[in-house]
């Protein structure tokens, strides 16, 4: 029987998925933002 308490539990797998999700989010959002800036001002 494990002596690990709920406070000790580290959801490493979840954090890996979160990291991938956040990295992809920043990458995709950043690429669109970069494209927008490359097109130039509209005013």
């Amino acid at each position: 029987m494990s002596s690990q308490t709920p406070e000790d539990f580290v959801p490493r797998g979840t954090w890996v998925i979160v990291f991938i999700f956040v990295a992809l989010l920043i990458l995709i959002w950043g690429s669109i933002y970069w494209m927008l800036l490359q097109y130039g001002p509209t005013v």
Partner: protein
Amino acid sequence: MASLHIDKHEKRWITISMVLLAAFAVLIGVAGFALGVQVPTLDQKIDPAKLDQDPEWSNPGVREIVPGKKYEVFIIAQTWQFTPREIVVPAGAKVTFYVTSRDIQHGFKVLDTDLNVQVIPGYVGKLSYTFKKPGEYKFICTEYCGLGHAAMFGVIKVVPPEEYGQ
């Protein structure tokens, strides 16, 4: 009274989400207000049935405001063509487009730029742009407007300033 318990991992995830949202909002503000990347506006109203009587719209095309620096372009969309279909402007000049529709809803999108506006009868869409590089920029209708929709396009020819008007 018991306080609300939030798991520490959940707290981290909420923090990351909030930081991301704040960062994106700040960057959009920078692009819009500091760098001038803004969505087009509906500038004014106009009666589509009276376009031919309007001094500005009866002869759509390019107006030279300040030679080499500032131009205005009036474009009328209708099924299934833009008038004019070919526009010539010099590179490096600020070009302000005024676009309206004679009949139904169309779209005006200049490829390879972020010039994109809905063309609604009764309204004038206004958007400005500076074409830095000479070349041909095609513009298309982005709102399905019937059988000839795919043929509804035109071209903006951006020429070097020294060649403009020759």
